């Protein structure tokens, strides 16, 4: 590995802190630009979705189990389950399915 993990962490720490603190300290007014506000509104959802799929089917030993976890997670969140119950249910379904799908 040619890069230093500590240096990676330092870069991340500085950027993270700047994002969270600059608006609170410097720019105390609302963002006026409508495109920019809309853009910032959509960013988290697109980022999270891009990072979730196909990564979720590649994270598990059986892609089928990861796929089922994805569908189950969407269904549970749709009927109102919170972050933690959805996360636990996804883990549980992968654990059970891989019991049958993957040889120990």
């Amino acid at each position: 590995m040619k890069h230093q993990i500590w240096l990676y962490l330092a870069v991340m720490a500085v950027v993270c802190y700047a994002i969270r603190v600059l608006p609170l300290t410097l720019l105390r007014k609302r963002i006026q630009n409508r495109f920019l506000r809309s853009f910032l509104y959509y960013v988290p959802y697109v980022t999270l979705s891009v990072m979730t799929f196909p990564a979720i089917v590649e994270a598990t030993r059986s892609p089928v189990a990861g796929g089922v976890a994805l569908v189950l997670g969407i269904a549970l969140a749709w009927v109102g389950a919170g972050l933690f119950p959805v996360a636990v249910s996804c883990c549980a379904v992968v654990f059970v399915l891989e019991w049958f799908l993957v040889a120990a």
Partner: protein
Amino acid sequence: MFFLRKHRVSLIRGARDGVPIGLGYFAVAFSLGIAARNAGLSAVQGFFLSFFGMASAGEYAAITVIAADAAYVEMALVTLIANARYLLMSFALSQRFDPAAPLRHRLLVGYSITDELFGIAVAQPKPLDPWYCYGSYLVAIPSWATGTAVGVIAGNLLPTRVVSALSVALFGMFIAVVVTPAKRDKVVGLFALLSFAASFTASRLLPALSGGTRTILLTLLLSGLAAALFPVPDDDTKEAQS
């Protein structure tokens, strides 16, 4: 007078509200620790990843950058994109502060803006007492950081079966964060599905593109498209809920 009686009350209330958040954080941080271990981080590095990162998606994105041994500038860009929503929350919080609130409180409260901690802070009456935030931070931050370190260590000890199952916890949380608003805003749901499709297509057609770069490019492209086609209304209701 820096610490009044009402601040102590706020501090205790914040700490109490921080307990359920801290418990959830520990579990998710544990699964983040497993991912961090796979990218080559030690337990101490995992601790500081979470201590400074304070974000599941942002840290997960950072881990993919480290795993890919990508350039430092990619780390900066990925961190910026994956944490961009905290810019919005920081703006929203700035509206809730006492305008005379000193800089040191702004510097400290800003440090740990997360989806959950922001969520309970904006539910407080205006003006926001920073000590309420500190109470919740004192419970949630140690839990988040130690959870990651424990995940790095215990990920080695657990059977692969269990590790494989726990590795989806993070994705489960991402799903819940997206699906809940998608129910009342169909555009969010539409773009979540488009993101799935685009991310899958890009990973198959352009396998040389690292996960971090893919996230940056698709986020800029699809969020820009969404903002151009479906601009949000001018009130701040959407922002307050995001």
